[in-house]
């Protein structure tokens, strides 16, 4: 058992990484995604990759998997017919949402429809107070009648049980759950306090409905993977990646599919953090640009910034507030409507814009020759010479440069009176500006100083745009990691087992002592550890990280404080000081003389570090005998819209210590790293390319 596999399913490709622990070698593989049944590509790819590398499946200790299946089901509304039980007199909570407009000027704004339409919801007589006391007893027979009605007349396959204040006392939800398990054993069940034990009914109920809605589909998908792997003779462990960058066993993943929303992208960020730790970099911008969107995340001191507030399936151009809220622990990512397929258009001011509309994969950019007439970012990059029409995807696909030029001329240059090269550069530049803007705001909202950070770029088009974006952000360094085309698959190998439990329980510090504080945390820690113990870890292997959302009495929002050390009772007395320090650093004013309260308690437990450590090699890289051998020739590129001769290199032939002076293009199968003029890049010991930008 010396091998581990990482598999990440993307929109176009399913990526594979095979790590050999004994030799610290990683082999990579790509396979077209099979959208009708994504498990097919997974199983085929595993077979092919193992055969190509002469490894038998019996030698594979684990397979770690990342998938956007859950997110896609929500975006495409392909989940199960789902029912919902709610507290009487609150049937309309899912429709009423926040009672807030996310755009003040567009009066035609629309909101996402609830996942469970009103006619598949039923009210149940019961009431729990904010303090957890039962104010009105549960009518269990009413719940049974309601579920029978939903099963018989609405044909529901999944059920979300959503009662008010269940985070404070889940008795009623559990009683209903027990009844349904007994009387309707085929239904998939999600209870709100189990999915997310936090305050805020719309957010918790919506998160729960997402969980219910995607459960049947995710369950059967995992079964197909498990059975398929078993058929291949796999006897190792299957792990599923969560949005927060931890691994779960299939059993826990099945129970909480909503924790898998950003499964694949999280793995990419995790790999950025991994490289950051290996290279001793404090602040990192992780940047991934694919076919339709770009994703960004921030890494501080080796750890990705996290959030428990996500938004899914936005209906309005990626606008914040136009999606459905998911309260799950996640790496804090921004999604930007900029990708290779982003289409150029002229806005109402008469100015050039790029995206967020995308040509997608079909028809795709004009240069794909599949009938696309509109100019996309990839067309501009082809016209600017950043892409080689004969070496797209390593030559697997030929690009039509004339079609790209025609689309740019017809839809951009002619209406705006620009030369074709100016138009193409403008598209490239505007896409970069959009990404830079999103990073600036994201970083500024989190008090993260990006100006001295390092960007780590990956994805199909990330390495192409990264240095120009870094220049706009005054970022001094960009790293193009080895294996950037399968970054998420590799990140799956760099993730530990972990799980997080959160609970709203409003408690004034003055009302408790160190023992009571520890007593509140104990059951939460126990619950968080459960999935890890089930995966075979011992208590000694598991480290808890405790974070508290705290505020002054009267303050409308909370500040997160990390509890130091392993013994909460010992850390209790330090809390006011820790909060005051955090408060002062955020607000720039002296701390207040007010009572302090803890609102949300969070315990994340993490297993031992993953086996993937720095110093691994990617099979087939570093193949040249001398530095000059990696140079393939030159190509004319339109930096700034003016033609410049750029050197072209083969990424996999580069050797450690080699220096490359921009302008240069470093081609690999999945992408091209663009080294901008006047800047230099060196290849480090692990074959990552480290580019420094002149100030």
């Amino acid at each position: 058992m010396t091998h581990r596999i990482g598999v990440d399913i993307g929109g176009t490709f399913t990526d594979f990484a095979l790590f050999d622990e004994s030799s610290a070698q990683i082999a990579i593989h790509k396979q077209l995604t099979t959208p009708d049944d994504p498990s097919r590509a997974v199983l085929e790819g595993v077979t092919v990759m193992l055969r190509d590398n002469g490894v038998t499946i019996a030698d594979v200790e684990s397979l770690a998997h990342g998938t956007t299946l859950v997110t896609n089901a929500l975006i495409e509304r392909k989940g199960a017919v789902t029912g919902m039980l709610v507290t009487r007199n609150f049937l309309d909570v899912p429709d009423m949402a926040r009672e807030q407009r996310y755009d003040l000027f567009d009066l035609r704004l629309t909101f996402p429809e609830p996942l469970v339409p009103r006619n598949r919801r039923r009210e149940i007589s019961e009431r729990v107070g904010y303090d957890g006391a039962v104010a009105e007893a549960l009518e269990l027979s009413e719940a049974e009648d309601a579920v029978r009605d939903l099963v018989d007349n609405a044909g529901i396959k999944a059920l979300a049980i959503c009662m008010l204040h269940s985070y404070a006392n889940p008795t009623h939800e559990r009683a209903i759950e027990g009844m349904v398990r007994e009387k309707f054993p085929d239904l998939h069940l999600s209870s709100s306090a189990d999915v997310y034990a936090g305050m805020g009914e719309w957010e918790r109920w919506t998160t729960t409905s997402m969980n219910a809605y995607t459960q049947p589909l995710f369950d059967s998908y995992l079964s197909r993977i498990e059975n398929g792997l078993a058929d291949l003779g796999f006897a190792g462990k299957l792990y599923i990646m969560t949005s927060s960058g931890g691994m779960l066993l299939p059993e826990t993943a099945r129970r909480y599919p909503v924790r898998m929303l950003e499964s694949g992208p999280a793995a990419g960020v995790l790999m950025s953090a991994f490289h950051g730790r290996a290279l001793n970099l404090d602040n990192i911008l992780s940047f991934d640009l694919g076919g339709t969107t770009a994703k960004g995340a921030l890494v501080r001191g080796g750890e990705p910034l996290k959030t428990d507030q996500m938004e899914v399936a936005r209906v309005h151009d990626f606008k914040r507030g136009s999606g459905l809220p998911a309260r799950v622990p996640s790496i804090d990512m921004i999604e930007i409507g900029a990708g290779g397929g982003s289409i150029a258009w002229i806005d109402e001011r008469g100015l050039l814009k790029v995206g967020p509309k995308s040509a997608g994969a079909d028809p795709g950019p004009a240069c794909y020759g599949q009938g696309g007439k509109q100019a996309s970012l990839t067309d501009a990059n082809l016209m600017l010479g950043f892409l080689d029409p004969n070496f797209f995807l390593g030559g697997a696909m030929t690009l039509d440069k004339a079609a790209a030029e025609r689309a740019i001329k017809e839809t951009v240059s002619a209406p705006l009176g620009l030369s074709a090269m100016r138009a193409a550069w403008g598209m490239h530049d505007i896409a970069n500006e959009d990404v830079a803007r999103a990073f600036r705001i994201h970083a500024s909202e989190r008090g993260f100083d990006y100006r001295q950070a390092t960007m780590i770029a990956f994805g199909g088009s990330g390495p192409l745009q990264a240095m120009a974006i870094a220049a706009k952000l005054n970022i001094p360094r960009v790293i193009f990691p080895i294996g950037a085309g399968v970054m998420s698959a590799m990140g799956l190998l760099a993730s530990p087992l972990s799980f997080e439990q959160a609970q709203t329980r409003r408690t004034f510090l003055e009302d408790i002592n160190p023992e009571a504080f520890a007593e509140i945390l104990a059951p939460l820690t126990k619950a968080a550890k459960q999935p890890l113990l089930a995966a075979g870890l011992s208590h000694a292997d598991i480290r808890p990280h405790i974070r508290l959302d705290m505020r002054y009495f009267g303050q409308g929002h909370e500040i997160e404080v990390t509890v130091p050390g392993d013994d909460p009772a010992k850390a209790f007395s330090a809390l006011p000081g820790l909060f005051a320090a955090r408060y002062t650093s955020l607000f720039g004013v002296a701390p207040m003389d007010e009572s302090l309260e803890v609102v949300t308690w969070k315990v994340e437990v993490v297993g031992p570090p993953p086996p993937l450590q720095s110093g691994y090699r990617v099979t087939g890289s570093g193949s040249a005998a001398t530095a000059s051998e990696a140079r393939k020739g030159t190509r004319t590129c339109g930096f700034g819209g003016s033609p410049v001769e750029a050197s072209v290199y083969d990424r996999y032939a580069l050797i450690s210590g080699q220096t490359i002076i921009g302008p240069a293009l470093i081609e690999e199968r999945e992408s091209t790293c663009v080294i901008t003029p006047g800047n230099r890049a060196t290849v480090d010991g692990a074959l990552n390319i480290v580019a420094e930008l002149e100030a």
Partner: protein
Amino acid sequence: MKTSASSQQFDAVSLSIMWDRMVAIADEIVSTLVRTSFSTIVRDSYDLSVVIMDTKGRLMAQGTYAVPVFIGTAPRTLRYMLERFPPETLRPGDIIATNDPWIGTGHMFDISMMRPIFKGDRLVGYTMSITHLPDIGGLGFGAAAREIYHEGLRLPICRFAKDGVMDPFLEELIRTNVRVPEQVIGDLVANIACNEVGGPMVTSFMEEYGLESLEPLSDAIGEHSERAMRVKLGEIADGRYENHIEIEGTDGPIPMACSVEIKGSDVSVDFSGTGGCVPRGINVPFCYTNAMALYAMKCLTIPALPNNSGAVTPIKVSAPEGCLLNAQPPFPTGGRHAIGHFVPGLIFGALAEAAPDKIQADCGMMDLMTIQGTHRDGRGISTIYFASGGFGALSGADGGDCVPGPSNMAVVPVEVWETITGTTVEKKSMVPDSGGPGAWRGGTGQEVVLRNDTGHPLTIFCMANRTEFPPLGYLGGKPGARRVHRLNDTEVDAKGSYILAPGDRIAMTEAGGGGIGDPKDRELALIERDIAQGRVTKEGAARDYGFGG
């Protein structure tokens, strides 16, 4: 309209990048302001604005998430500030501030803070931030004042900070005059801090693009905006369009009137015929009227156009001095939104026939109720409850159910509300049939029932409207249901103050939005969906739409 020579140095690419960068800088200043603000109103309701202006005092960019009330106010505020502190007297690190309703944004809760931007020792522009403070003394948030002096501390234009440091006397003055000094000072510090980070962002942007001054870029932004606005305004047929409505006041209905004159692409909006000021805190200084009128015109033309001085050049707004929409001191203005929010609907109504595919029917508007008392745990309560009525319909779009307009807020979740107040929300549900019938239906209102379970008396202050005069529908669309407040099942004045004894209930039925177009023209499938999803009852569908008959 002329195109200046200097603005021609920008093509459709460079202007796109530089203009959007200016907006991005304003957005980044906003995010600093929001992150460092203490109060919920800034963080969650975005009751704030950040702008960048050139040396001529023209607005170049405004933060994207500003609420409508701040459109066009900053250049006027800056003009007054520069009269008091001429540009040549300004030094790097100066902060000029005021909360004067007539100089700033219409009530004393809003502080406007301006900081000059220096590139080396040369003044190149200004940043300004505006936020709604948690308190400013006086009677507190509401309409109870009879004159401006009841409403708290009025700061004339002053040098609030020197070298970025708050004037110690002014800090002490404010601390002494407000209820929650820590929160107020915290928010003032956030304003100072955000302006401090804004200037260097502007100058480093100028260095990146080799700009010696902002004026050529400002010219280009203004010209493109004005041109785009004129194209859209030109689509509305020339003519003079009028609207007269009545709204409920304390001593009988208050008339509100407007006329909109369109000549080519020039628009004048005038509010002659509107009633006079009243001795309650609902009078509207002209700056606020102007902002709401410009907001309405923006919604009708190019909602996505970034705010700047050029975008509003073609539109002239006026109101007779002394009328409710051009209030003069010493009339109080604390709750100026209660009247000011009628301005967009007034304009949409006037333009119903001229721009039938663009206007919105009346919104049910939101209901704000201040609650004061004692929690079951003995701690004090002073907070605002918010519930929204239905959004007005547009041609081709039903109004959103329980969506606020023209202003915006976010609801406090039931679970949070009950926790912080100790009251019980017995019910919160949409009211079927409350949305104004039409080819496009108005959004439904909702019913909220609150029970005082605190064990102590609760005082509530209401400021609601749409109780006598329902939200209107247009072009054949019907009005939405009116708003009703009930105290223990007895209808009460929705602008009154009440004491809720333990166990008492206040029930608020929020107004529905108005409909657009004849209900007979509504698609059958939409009626069926409304019935299935509980927006309309079968009886209501038969009565209002002739469904099933």
